[in-house]
């Protein structure tokens, strides 16, 4: 089957040492739950879910503990039954070392499920299906955790040419998709069938890097069965050449279909959508079994003697997980994800979340500190390695010099931070760090600028309003009695009199204006509609606004790869 598929090439890429054998020797094992499960409410791209439980409450396995906030968000569930001991700020599995709101559950050991019902997606409307998946907390499990229900939308045309299942898994060390495909190929394909239906996709291309022959074999058998049952040949397993980052969504789409989806465009506009194989598995569990996303396969590898894949409940501490695999004594760090793109964890006591495809234990020996950074000699190795056809060294110059506008001109935001450029750089420059820095600065500036624009607008509006009020008031005063005239004269004198210090002057003017306005208020109603709202109403309106802004802002950094 795979021989028939024409493959395309993407530019650049590297071939690092893969180190995948260690963790594929043993089948998937189920990791025991930690004594405390720390489940962050915010585990996906999009809005921060609202907590639905309070401390002291008993929860069942699969019970929703965080409700999706609007459509661009995803629910969070209790991974097992137990008691909520706290809803509080806990350290996040994030390089920043900052805390965020988490539900802390003490498992009761009974692992008692809530009631489960399969979802009949065939008789439900697409919107209902998407809402169901949102509330089941299904997100992309390739690492980018983009809410799956948002992507299960065939777009304007109502149908797609190709559904791509991403089993390429190009990062070294990580094998969670590999073992999942080996052991649960049928389930994955059942999920794929559902997705294909929802997307009205013509064919399903399952891209697997050719260094995973077992997974390819297993998936081919399963695909043949599905095709036979359906009486067509829509499912195709395609072996793609092993080259990092072939598992990047855009790169895989390019390899399988030749289509290049530009930055900022939806792939459905090009008739193609891409999901991780783990996501297909989760979709099946949610729809056919009624089980929300509670756990995932996590590779524990690196500086451990017992590297293996585990099925891990979300909220499990990485420390407990690592302990299962006999970490070597010189271990000095924990990385979430692979060695090319993974995030350095601030501590090993952070929970496994939906984005945790791999817990990589590091040591000085395994990941030696990079040699000293030398100046860039513009050798162009990075440009040769860049899978996005960028000029990394140019972006580096401008990011380093903080000339962000120029960095953007060189398409900084097309960078997927795959790390290829830094990997090949003979000067050992931490290129990706410069891009991350530049990107977050640019986002911050953008937000600042928007805020300043709003402030300017509102300030100008206020000046306008004050001017108008002053005129109206002057007209009224003129019509009033001599006492009124006297007062007006006094006010005028006040305004023109040079004050001792500007602060005092400003203060006086403010108070005077306040008094005047207070009087005026009795006679006339403010034309402004904002002041007619109660504070609660206003607060709510603004809180919604704020959340929207937050979503927009968060959606930007994470739209990377492996959806």
């Amino acid at each position, binding site marked *: 089957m795979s021989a028939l598929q024409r493959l395309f090439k*993407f*530019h650049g890429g*590297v071939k*690092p*040492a893969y180190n995948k054998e260690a963790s594929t020797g043993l089948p998937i094992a189920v990791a025991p739950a930690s004594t405390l499960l720390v489940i962050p409410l915010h585990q996906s791209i999009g809005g921060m879910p609202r907590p639905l439980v309070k401390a002291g409450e008993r929860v069942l396995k699969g019970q929703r503990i965080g409700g999706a906030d609007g459509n661009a968000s995803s629910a969070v569930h209790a991974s097992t039954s137990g008691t909520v001991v706290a809803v509080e700020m806990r350290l996040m599995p994030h*390089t920043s070392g900052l805390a965020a709101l988490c539900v802390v559950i003490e498992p009761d050991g009974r692992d008692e499920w809530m009631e489960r019902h399969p979802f009949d997606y065939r008789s439900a409307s697409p919107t209902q299906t998407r809402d169901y998946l949102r509330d089941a907390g299904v997100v992309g499990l390739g690492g980018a955790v983009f809410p799956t229900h948002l992507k299960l939308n065939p777009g304007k045309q109502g149908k797609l040419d190709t559904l791509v299942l991403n089993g390429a898994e190009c990062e070294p060390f990580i094998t969670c998709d590999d073992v999942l495909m080996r052991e649960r190929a049928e389930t994955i394909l059942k999920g794929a069938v559902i997705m294909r239906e929802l997307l009205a996709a013509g064919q399903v291309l399952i891209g697997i890097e050719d260094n995973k022959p077992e997974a390819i074999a297993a998936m081919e058998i399963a695909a043949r069965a599905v095709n036979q049952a359906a009486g067509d040949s829509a499912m195709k397993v395609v072996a793609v050449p092993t080259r990092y980052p072939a598992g990047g969504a*855009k790169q895989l789409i*390019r390899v399988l279909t*030749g289509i*290049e*989806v*530009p*930055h900022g*465009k939806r792939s459905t*506009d*090009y*008739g193609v959508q891409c999901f991780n194989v783990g996501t297909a598995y989760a979709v099946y569990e949610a729809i056919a079994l009624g089980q929300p996303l509670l756990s995932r396969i996590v590779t524990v590898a690196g500086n451990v003697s017992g590297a293996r894949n585990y099925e891990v409940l979300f909220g499990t501490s990485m420390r407990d997980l690592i302990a299962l695999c006999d970490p070597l004594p010189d271990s000095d*760090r924990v*990385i979430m994800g*692979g*060695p*090319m*793109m*993974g*995030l*350095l964890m601030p501590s090993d006591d952070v929970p496994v979340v939906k984005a945790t495809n791999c817990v990589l234990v590091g040591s000085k020996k395994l*990941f*030696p*500190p*990079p*040699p*000293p950074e*030398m*100046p*860039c*000699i*513009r*050798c*162009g*190795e990075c*440009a040769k390695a860049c*899978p*996005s*056809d*960028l*000029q990394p060294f140019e972006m580096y110059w401008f990011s380093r010099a903080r000339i962000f506008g120029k960095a953007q001109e*060189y*398409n900084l935001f*097309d960078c997927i931070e795959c*790390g290829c450029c*830094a*990997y*090949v*750089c*003979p*000067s*050992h420059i*931490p290129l*990706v*760090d410069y891009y991350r820095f530049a990107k977050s600065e640019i986002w911050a500036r953008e937000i600042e600028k928007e805020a300043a624009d709003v402030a300017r607008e509102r300030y100008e509006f206020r000046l306008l309003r004050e001017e108008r009020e002053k005129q109206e008031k002057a007209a009224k005063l003129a019509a009033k009695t001599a006492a009124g005239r006297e007062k007006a004269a006094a006010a005028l004198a006040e305004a023109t009199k040079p004050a001792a210090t500007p602060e005092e002057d400003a203060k006086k003017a403010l108070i005077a204006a306040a008094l005047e306005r207070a009087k005026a208020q009795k006679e006339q109603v403010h034309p402004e509609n904002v002041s007619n709202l109660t504070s609660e109403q206003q607060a709510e309106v603004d809180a919604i606004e704020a959340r929207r802004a937050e979503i927009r802002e968060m959606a930007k950094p994470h739209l990377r790869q492996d959806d």
Partner: protein
Amino acid sequence: MNNSPYFLKPASVQSVMLRVLVALLPGIAAYVWFFGAGILVQIVLASVTALVAEAVMLKLRGKPLMLFLSDGSALVTAWLIALTFPSIAPWWLTVLGTLLAIVVAKHLYGGLGQNPFNPAMVAFALMIVAYPLLMSQWPRVDATDFAVQWQAIFGNRQILDAVTMATPLDALRTVLRDPEQRAMIGGLLGTKATFGNVGGKGWEWIAAGYFLGGLYLLQQRIITWHMPAAFLATLCVISGAFALHDPERFAGPGFQLFTGGAMLAAFFIVTDPVSGATTPRGKLIFAGGAAVLTWIIRTFGAYPDGIAFAVLLMNIAAPLIDMYTQPPVFGHKDKRGGPP
């Protein structure tokens, strides 16, 4: 602790520079064979000067000494200077040129990676403008005695007249200027004359050595094919066109490619990444432009070889070339797709 990626390809500036030095060896061997071991003296002189100057500048600029000193970039500059200067130039000429290259052209502009101009070519250009006569005295093919060359380098300039001769390019230039002698050009480039069959006796073999080294660099993926191909092809086409038009006035492509520093330039000089263009199309334009300028300066200019000036002129243009030749990034090229 660093962020991702956590492991790097075992590559370094040092290994790049070392392989460049290795690639120069065949050319140097041919040089010694045909023109004597004087060139080795020059290489040592330039290398020592370069390292000392580099160390002093690094110290003054407060940079880590050993790290940068061992990157090999100063040695590459030094060797290129030695190979482009006459091998019987007085010692101070080489030393002064190397000093200018390292101190002015490299460190005053910010050191490794920051120099807008190729340091070796800056040295050559400065020295040929300052001391045109000394920079035009090349050893005779038949006067390769090391002792004589040693004397020429370290003091006794009187013996010079006996051991120097015009380079093929110089001879060509002289011939071209004189209408009465133009007919000689055939003889100059012919089979029997003082010179070799293609680019002048000895010269063509040195060029062949550089070519060999260039192939090695290509194989090692230190340089891409763009620059050498564009440089050599452009030089070939432009000189071929003019030679066809008037063979009595213009030398043909064989001569242009295999004489002077053309081959060295094609593989080792225009390919300097720091001062050159970096985009694929930009490299073609950069090297092609350098070849056109080289030919123009060789043919109509005031100095024997035009490569240094050509390369420096293109260095100035490199940022502009890069700006206008940015390759389309992923998804922005007009292949398949585009919104339906």
